[in-house]
């Protein structure tokens, strides 16, 4: 039970549980990929199966994530939509004046943990620095594997060529990225890597591992995919360096112009709205219907879940008596109930949706906030 639990939001599932009793339609947005093999994944997937039992719709950020979610929760694939993340391209514009004319700078911007492939990074840095004297590394981010990078720096005396910036604030990420020519992402698992889109928008050439949903994100002329091995990454990186030295490939401004039309928050909001409008036509799943389904879903745990549901209904009735719903103002927009909302706003068949986002912390929660803001903007 280590990092998978971190990206498993308890509050989200609690909200989903209450939506059954309140008669609120629910949408679940999944930002991360899960395996099937280890113990924590098995338990998490089982809970997900029960939790998403009465969901109206699920949104995933990539096609691979969709396949993963469908397998994990035994949903019908038709009930899962693929709506990718987006970036605010105006915040990530290239700035060629910030580049060093005599050097090729390779930027890395990620958490320095096992999942982000820092071990792969430590394998390729000495080789590249040795072969290309004009190449420098600029590494932003912190984590428990930072010590490995510092060791490599010491071992090969690369103090002047490998710069470790530590934790970089989100507002300053673009300023760091525009100093580079090439961006490297060595993740071992990624559902939709937004950092490579940000880097490509800043005009950097992107070299990345082809795990998870990454091959779906950028067009082939903007990215170099590699297998998650040091040899493959080195090869891809070398071809990127060769392109940079000879001035081949798309120019930074061309890349930015192309990308700014592909991933837009307004598109995300529009497509999410289609999902919301679609589920309003569906009938609300009543607790009784849910209980029928739960009865068959698990021999023991299904029954326990039903008991919890009944207790929740009793509690809701008590709350209805104590603080009746008619005394609480109803909001008029569709964009209710974010992660923080879990109060008893009754309303059978009302035009309310519970949109529950969960994903890994830091960047994931930022993505969640950006999606919510985009939907807000378009519907008010």
């Amino acid at each position, binding site marked *: 039970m280590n990092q998978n639990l971190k990206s498993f939001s308890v509050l989200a599932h609690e909200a989903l549980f209450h939506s059954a009793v309140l008669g609120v339609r629910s949408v679940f947005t999944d930002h991360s*990929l*899960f*395996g*099937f*093999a280890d113990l924590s994944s098995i338990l998490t997937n089982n809970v997900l199966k029960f939790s998403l039992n009465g969901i109206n719709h699920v949104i995933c950020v*990539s*096609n*691979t*994530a969709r*396949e*993963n979610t*469908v*397998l994990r929760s035994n949903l*019908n*694939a*038709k*009930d*899962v*939509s*693929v*709506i*990718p993340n987006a970036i605010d391209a105006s915040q990530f514009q290239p700035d060629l004046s910030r580049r060093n004319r005599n050097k090729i700078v390779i930027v890395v911007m990620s958490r320095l943990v096992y*999942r982000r*492939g820092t*071990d*792969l990074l430590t394998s390729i840095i000495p080789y590249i620095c040795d072969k290309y004297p004009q190449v420098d590394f600029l590494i932003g981010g912190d984590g428990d594997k930072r010590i490995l990078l510092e060791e490599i720096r010491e071992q090969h005396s690369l103090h002047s060529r490998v710069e470790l910036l530590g934790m970089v604030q989100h507002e300053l990420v673009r300023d760091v990225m525009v100093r580079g020519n090439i961006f490297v992402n060595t993740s*071992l*698992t990624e559902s*939709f890597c937004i950092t490579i889109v940000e880097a490509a928008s800043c005009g950097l050439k992107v070299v990345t*591992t082809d*795990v*998870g*949903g990454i*091959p*779906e*994100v*950028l*067009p082939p002329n903007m990215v170099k995919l590699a297998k*998650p*091995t*040091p040899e493959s990454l080195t090869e891809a990186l070398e071809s990127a360096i060769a392109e940079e030295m000879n001035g081949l490939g798309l120019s930074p401004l061309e890349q930015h112009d192309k990308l700014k039309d*592909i*991933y837009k928050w*307004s*598109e995300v909001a*529009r*497509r999410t*709205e*289609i*999902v919301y*409008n*679609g*589920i309003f*036509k*569906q009938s609300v799943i009543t607790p009784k219907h849910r209980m029928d389904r739960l009865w068959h879903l698990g021999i023991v745990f299904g029954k326990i879940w039903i008991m919890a549901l009944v207790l929740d209904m009793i509690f809701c009735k008590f709350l209805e008596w104590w603080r009746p719903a008619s005394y609480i103002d109803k909001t008029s927009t569709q964009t209710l109930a974010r992660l923080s909302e879990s109060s008893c706003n009754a309303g059978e068949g009302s035009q309310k949706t519970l949109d529950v986002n969960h994903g890994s912390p830091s960047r994931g929660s930022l993505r969640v906030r950006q999606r919510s803001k985009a939907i807000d903007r*378009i*519907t*008010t």
Partner: protein
Amino acid sequence: MLDWKRKDGSELNKHPSPTRHKMFEEYTSVIGEHQGRSRQLWRKVLYEDQGVPDNYVDSSFLREMQKNLFVRSYNYWSVVLSTGCITQQINTVIIFVMCFIYLQEKLLTSYLLNSISAVLLLLGYAFTVLTNCSACDIKALIIFCTAAFVLSPVLMSLTETISTDTIYAMTAIMLLAHLISYDYELHASTDGVISFNAGIFATVCLASRLPNLLLGYSLIILSAFVFGMLPNMRRELRSHFFPYLDIIMTVVHFVCALALVCSKSFTVAILLFCGFFFIMFICPHLLVRLQPLKNNLHGPWDEAVVVES
């Protein structure tokens, strides 16, 4: 279809493709049809608008999923042979406990036990020299025997004040822990620290119930052999002479243990026999039967494994 307008009355940007605005109930599950403006194959990409709704399910859905890539199939008799190591260790523990009971009832004199232990240790030493096994350290064992002789009064008095029932319960738990944490692998991967320590602790518990100091020392020496040297010796023998010697060893262990237990209590012997039959013949059958039911899923969502080169 609801017509969205901004608050100031301006229209929202409408996407040029009409198919995007399909409502969900209009979209029946057309799995497999290649829709789209340009009548091309649907590709698994996010950067292109392929003119299909967001919940379109292509025929290539889950095509990259693979099942049971690394699952091995078992042969019944080879699994039965492999259970020999478990049977041997359980029998060893039973023989050890029976030795304790005999010592307590003075059916076995300490001289006899010491001479048996000495012979076994010498055999072990000869074996070490012959097979050049680095793990069987005879020097450490001699040092241990000497130290045990000096410290045996202390060791015996460690658990003297604890009641007999607690002692027996603790011994049972410790021996169970020893069996559970024992390294049954053909080639020793871990040092088996927990199993060794559990065995020694069980010995210390039992030694305090013995009336005589010398008897206690005999038991400690026997335990040093059983928990310290025997695992390594057996592993070496098995790796060199598998499977024939293994079968002989299993049978010898089984017969010895059963004979010793029989002399004390016939019912327990019968129960043991049934238990071993279950472990040796029924458990492999279950394993072979359940193996095809495995459902391991592999696909592009798997976390990559970094191979240290």
